[in-house]
């Protein structure tokens, strides 16, 4: 499996290197977005409280983009491979398409993360504002990406059966944005289950209590536990639905001819 992971990693890297204009424009967009966040954050928050609040914004934004990348990569991979005429070969891998998609997603997230870190350090050097980002922030980050991967499998399932998923992806982005922005953590009664079960909701609550209230990872009440449960649940749902969708697509015989 390590060979498959390194093959995915190399493929992504080679394609990035082969077309430097695409790479540079992608980097320029990330730099501009982060530079804008720094300047906007400085303007709104003021110099004195800049450090803590700005790091929240930037970590939140980075996690959001990485998660959206995870959600979109799998569906995009299916339709792109089908258009390239390579989808059948991916499905001929003895590891199975679900694992290949997961590995490709991991390669994408790692490359995205590297870009983000590099950009962040560059922008910090340019602006002279240095952020403190706790290494514990990585835990909610990983949980968020796990949930996003589950959602990615759901999008891939729709793509494999319906052949197009771009509009669904657009819609999903709005729904997820709503779930992240809405204060679901403060909901009570039966609505509390929404805060626990809806994708990203508990991990956002966890991040909020860590960043805005300065809580330690283990001192966030049950939010860490619910975040883990939520991430595992969505990953499992995604995997099960994708396995069903593959079976259905094979039965219908529409694994190609997109």
């Amino acid at each position: 499996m390590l060979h498959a992971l390194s093959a995915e990693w190399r493929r992504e890297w080679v394609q990035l290197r082969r077309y430097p204009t695409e790479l540079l424009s992608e980097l320029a967009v990330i730099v501009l977005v982060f530079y804008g966040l720094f300047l906007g954050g400085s303007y709104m928050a003021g110099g004195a409280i800049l450090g803590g609040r700005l790091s929240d914004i930037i970590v939140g934004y980075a996690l959001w983009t990485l998660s959206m990348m995870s959600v979109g990569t799998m569906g995009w991979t299916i339709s792109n491979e089908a258009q390239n005429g390579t989808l059948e070969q991916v499905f001929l891998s003895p590891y199975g398409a679900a694992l290949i998609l997961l590995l490709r997603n991991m390669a994408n997230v790692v490359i995205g993360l590297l870009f983000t870190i590099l950009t962040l350090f560059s922008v910090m050097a340019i602006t002279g504002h240095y952020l403190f980002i706790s290494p514990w922030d990585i835990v909610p980050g990983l949980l968020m990406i796990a949930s996003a991967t589950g959602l990615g499998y759901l999008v891939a399932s729709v793509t494999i059966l319906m052949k197009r998923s771009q509009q669904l992806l657009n819609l999903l982005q709005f729904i997820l944005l709503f779930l992240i922005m809405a204060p679901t953590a403060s909901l009570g009664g039966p609505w509390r289950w929404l805060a626990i079960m809806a994708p990203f909701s508990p991990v956002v609550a966890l991040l909020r209590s860590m960043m805005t209230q300065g809580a330690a990872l283990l001192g966030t009440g049950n939010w860490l536990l619910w975040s883990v449960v939520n991430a595992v649940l969505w990953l499992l749902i995604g995997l099960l639905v994708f396995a069903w969708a593959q079976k259905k697509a094979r039965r219908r015989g529409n694994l190609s001819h997109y």
Partner: protein
Amino acid sequence: MLLEVGGLVKRYKTKDRQIVEAVRGIRFTLSAGAILAFLGPNGAGKTTTIKMIAGLVRPDDGDVTVEGHSLSGRSGQALRHLGAVLEGSRNLYWRLTPLENFEYWGGIRGLSRKTARDRGRELMREFGLEDKIGSTVQQLSRGMQQQVAICAALIHSPSLLLLDEPTLGLDLDASDRIQDYVLRLAHERGVGILLTTHQMEVAQTLADRISIIQNGVLTLEGLKEDVLARFTGSSYVFELAEAPSAEARLLADDLGAAWTGECEFRAVLDRPTDVYEIMRALEPCAVVRVMRETADLATVFREHTRKPVPVENIREVTA
């Protein structure tokens, strides 16, 4: 047995909610080192069968085993022994070089980068394409792309190779290279090859065995020689050293000679030993050549598929 295809059935639902049986109980085997040409008219069920063998289409009934591993059970094990070049697909990333493609396709089949590179170089050398290893696939000619696709399908040294229309749209040189390679692959290295093609001359050159599918039913199966012999008429061409006398010519006419020249005629004989009777009738004129006309695969295919599929093999199924 390398490949065992056991009673495959595939039904599709049409838009008007009728169920059509695309493949009806196909059953055959393929041993190591053999080339089976799987032929049939358009829409006969060839591609569906190939895709079921590759695990891309799920059969409604029956199973496929590769090297003893069932595709419906241990599909990962079965797929380790299988490579495929499918028609209508590029089978390669065009923005990558052949070597980068080999690294990728080898990697997702469990090969290390070094093994995939070494094997890829070796395969490209065998096709005489070693100088193209650093060009992107989109820069290569159609024939070269197809050869690279075959190399990629062989990167993990599978024991079974599925080739769906491997020479379609290729020039003679590329087609010859692929055919030479496929022959060597099967007969020297023991790879079993399942080939589908509409190019009968390609099938005749490559195949050891012939299968013909019509309306989802396997209607002909056998060794190439047997299949060709079954359709070979009892027509013989006689070539004479000189024009025979009028009397000898009349005798030959009585035995069924149809003259195509002063010194050449064709005769349809009931028994091969009738050749001697004609030679005696022509004496003293010498017969310098007797040739039995053999059917080619295109003739066999045309003759065979002209006949309707036996009624007992056709079942109408309605949803």
